[in-house]
């Protein structure tokens, strides 16, 4: 997914860009860390922690369905990004930092803390605000993050039996062509 800052500037959001860049420094010390279960290949530790928090909300798990964290969704996304053109991970990483940014959230939303420090309800409310934000950049970032987490979660074979999907087994290993 493309997270184009040009789009933001096109909407006259240059001030937002400056604000968020300034806020990254504030966010650095306040991100709740997460321990990746595989060496990070594309994202840094802070970006990974924010991604993991988003994935938690996209697929929190409910007893029947596993959580995104249980299915290693953040690590799978990091591994996928490492094999894509490098610019993709750079842009996604910037989007994650913008979401986490405390200063921008305080000024724009009256939110006094970083995304990773919010409770589940607060994180849901933030993601919903970004879905419908008048700022195109926020909608773009939401769509990219939600799309990556959703696709990675639902492509996991562990999900198949839970939705009645038999998987492709019957069509694998065909020796004789029909």
């Amino acid at each position, binding site marked *: *997914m*493309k*997270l*184009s800052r*040009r*789009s933001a500037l096109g909407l006259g959001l240059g001030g937002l860009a400056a604000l968020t860049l300034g806020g990254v420094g504030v966010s650095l010390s306040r991100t709740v860390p997460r321990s990746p279960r595989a060496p990070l290949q594309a994202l840094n530790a802070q970006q990974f922690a924010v991604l993991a928090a988003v994935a938690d*909300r*996209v*697929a*929190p798990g*409910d007893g*029947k*369905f596993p959580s995104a964290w249980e299915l290693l969704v953040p690590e*799978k996304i990091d591994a*996928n990004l*490492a*094999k*894509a*053109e*490098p*610019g*993709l991970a750079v842009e996604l990483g910037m989007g994650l930092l913008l979401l986490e940014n405390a200063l921008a959230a305080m000024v724009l939303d009256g939110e006094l803390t970083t995304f990773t420090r919010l409770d589940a309800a607060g994180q*849901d409310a933030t*993601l*919903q605000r970004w*879905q*419908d934000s008048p700022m*195109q950049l926020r*909608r*773009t*970032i*939401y*769509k*990219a993050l*939600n*799309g*990556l*987490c*959703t*696709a*990675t*979660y*639902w*492509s*996991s*074979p562990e*999900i*198949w039996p*839970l*939705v*009645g*999907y038999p998987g*492709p087994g*019957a*069509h*694998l290993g*065909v020796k004789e*062509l*029909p």
Partner: protein
Amino acid sequence: MSGQIIAAETLTDGVTLTCDVCVVGSGAGGATIAAGLCEAGLDVILLEEGGHHTRRDFDLQEQNAYPMLYQERGLRATDDGAITILQGRNVGGGTTINWTTCYRTPTRILRHWADRYGLDALAGDKLTPHFEAMESRLNIQEWPEELANENNRRLLEGCRALGYQVHAVKRNVRGCANSGYCGLGCPHDAKQGMLLTTIPDALSAGLRLIHHAQAVQLHHEGAKVTSLSARVKRPDAQTDTGAGFTVKAKVFVASGGAINSPALLLRSNINPNDLVGKHTLLHPVVAMPAIYEQAIEGWSGAPQSIASHQYVDRGPAMGFFMEAPPLQPMLAASGFYGFGKMQISFLSQLRHVGVMLAICVDGLSETTPGGTVYLRRDGRIGVSYPTTPALEEAFTFAHDVLARVTFAAGARRATTLHPMPLELRGPQDLPRLGERAYGPLAHSIFTAHQMGGCRMSADPKDGVVGPDHRVIGHDNLFVIDGSVLPTALGVNPSHTIYALAHRARPLVIDAARGA
């Protein structure tokens, strides 16, 4: 003469290869033209950025297939992220992963091209022999209506109940097992894509196919292109190895598709009439999922076999045609904009989910001019696709029609793909569709058909290529792929591209022999 399949990483770094014709891209256009050139006895090198995969590599898992077989590992999108771009990146290109639907170019489109772009050369029945030749080679035949899977059957029944035009489509398959996995690579070698047809034809006539080779830049001296520089891509990723090579040829053919071919020309500072990358057309797709009482199991059976053209021609308004997609879990989920319980509650009933698509026809009017392919500052490809009131109107109307067909087909409930989906319980809820906005980043939008960006025109001041596919101002450079289409088609584009490439064979042969 037997050809060669060469992994680019096995080439000596910095080597220069020579040939008569170098074709860039192995999809519907590139492979079809390459086969014709090889069969005419020309020495051809075909470059493909993606990998060479066979049915033994197709494990049919979405988590592996999209990164392996699609552009940007399945993550390609417009700049604003609003439109997900599904596009092939492998030997065979889009024809390895498309859903096999084949249509001849509609007569009204050919007439429009003749009227607006002077393309009399394609009008009337001039493409007929080329359609016939490719229909024979790719075994393009109507897929019997009675074999439609449940998801397509709902489209058929819903349209019939409303009195809408609806029909069975033609598919390029031979011995299809009706498995439903067309989009992940055919596990049965039944799909008659380029991988199994024109590429083997070309190889048996001496083709050198080099995979994991990205064409970076065409070098030219005045009107003549002299060489092409290429990068070697890693086989397990879409990143560079750092190695490269050069191809010198008498003639070059760009067939990378409607996004990569304009990008190659732009990287090469070739931009006739400042139109390269302009009028990029995407057939933007909106979708409506629904829950049915009966099991649908939309992952099984030919994914696309029924279509309705009831609203493909709406006069001055933007038309759309209706088809159905495959419904493996990831593709089904990827349309959902919401998160958490919202996703789970719908997708946990995946066995009962059906989806219908409305595919909007852009480029036929100045009110839907399409988008732009351009180069970003870091060299990557950008695709912008601004919204217009006509596009939003088409999306709005399409949602209404999709809901009508869905409920006429017996759906228990339907949903939109907005961030806060609108759930509809029956036709009485249709007025509620007006509660939502329609357009980019208002709901999910996809494209599986990329066209335009190197427009063909008989007017040398109004196109990128002429009716002979030759790039204006460059005698030995041709573009043969979906990028030359002046407008979207209102049908799936692969067969049009096959026919255009088949028609272009003698034009390129003559150019190579005369060079």
